């Protein structure tokens, strides 16, 4: 039984099989991300009610919060894929991790920038060194560190090992980011949605927020597959099947 599952995993995670199947999945993810994103943005920016305290300015939440959630989610995908690559030496896992890093870095950057633009009118400052903002900035540097290791080490297996280990070490920052607003006094407010209590948000605002969060996940799925396919072609460029593929074009 175990052997059969293992065999199935190996077949599925073979770069060629992944290349074929992911090519079929990308359009579905991309189209649904676009549709949900447009719908979520329209609901968030035009239909959702004004906030009692922050007026219209709060609407940046529909970008800021999904981006911040994605920055954590993609990091976890990257770290888990790195661990799988490190332990079971599945090459595809390392490729997915490497493909995820720049996407995660962009979402982290987006969360920091939108947070900064939101902070000025509401708090009165673009940036403060509180625990939430600082730990999110460290996350951006972790992504940069991963990408730097990937591109500076010539031998691909060594690069995957080094950057993978960094990704795993950095996991410790994820609970810190999430709980920073509870463990310490921060200027950043506590969790609105991601908590055990019921969300502290009116349902007409919550639904567009969740739609945007889901759209961001689908967007990531589409982009990470495109990027991982490029990784596959790049790393397997000397294999027979890639050569045949290129010759066909």
């Amino acid at each position, binding site marked *: 039984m175990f052997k059969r599952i293992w065999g199935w995993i190996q077949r599925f995670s073979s770069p060629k099989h992944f290349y074929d199947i992911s090519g079929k999945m990308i359009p579905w993810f991309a189209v649904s991300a676009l549709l949900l994103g447009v719908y979520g943005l329209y609901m968030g920016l035009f239909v959702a*009610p*004004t*906030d*009692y*305290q*922050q007026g219209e300015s*709060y609407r940046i*939440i529909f970008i800021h919060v999904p981006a911040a959630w994605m920055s954590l989610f993609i990091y976890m995908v990257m770290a888990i894929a790195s*661990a799988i690559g*490190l*332990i*079971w*030496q599945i090459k595809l896992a390392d490729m997915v991790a490497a493909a995820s890093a720049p996407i995660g870095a962009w979402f982290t950057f987006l969360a920091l920038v939108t947070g900064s633009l939101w902070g000025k*009118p*509401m*708090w*009165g*400052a673009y940036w*403060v*060194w*509180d*625990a939430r903002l600082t730990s999110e900035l460290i996350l951006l540097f972790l992504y940069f560190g991963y990408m730097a290791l990937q591109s500076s080490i010539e031998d691909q297996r060594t690069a995957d090992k080094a950057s993978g*280990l960094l990704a*795993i*070490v950095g*996991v*410790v920052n994820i609970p*810190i980011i999430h709980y920073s607003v509870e*463990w*310490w*006094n*921060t*200027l950043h*407010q*506590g*969790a*609105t949605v991601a908590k055990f209590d019921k969300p*502290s*948000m*009116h349902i*007409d*605002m919550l639904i567009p927020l969740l739609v945007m969060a889901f759209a961001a996940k689908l967007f990531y799925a589409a982009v990470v597959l495109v990027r991982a396919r490029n990784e596959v072609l790049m790393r397997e460029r000397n294999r027979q099947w890639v050569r045949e593929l290129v010759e066909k074009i």
Partner: protein
Amino acid sequence: MSMNKRSKRKLLVVMVVLGMALATVLALTAFEENLMYFYSPTEVNNGTAPDNRTIRVGGLVVAGTVQRAEDSLLVKFDLTDGAEVITVEYSGILPDLFREGQGIVAMGELKDKKVFVANEVLAKHDENYMPPEVASALKAAEQK
């Protein structure tokens, strides 16, 4: 590839995660105080917060205590964490969200253990989002 090697790598990953977690817990516990963005009025009054040094104090603006000078930007108000109260003095432009009952964080120095002289006031909003009608309905229900 032997199973033994794979188990070793598994162990390595687990040890790295656990080791990092332990090291981080120790480091964060050691620097606990420096990670706090602000002190509460209680900590200022009981002497936990340092005197004559720039610190931040956070709390709610006590309703009915905001006094504005007529000929300058000087404003004086009380700040509370529900238990203790301190008086804050500030001269400058306040953030839009500043009002009675609002959470704020003031940076400055405690003068003569009495008045906190701030040179920066930031507004701290809560995690609740709702339309104004709902907010006023909640408020009305609370007052009944």
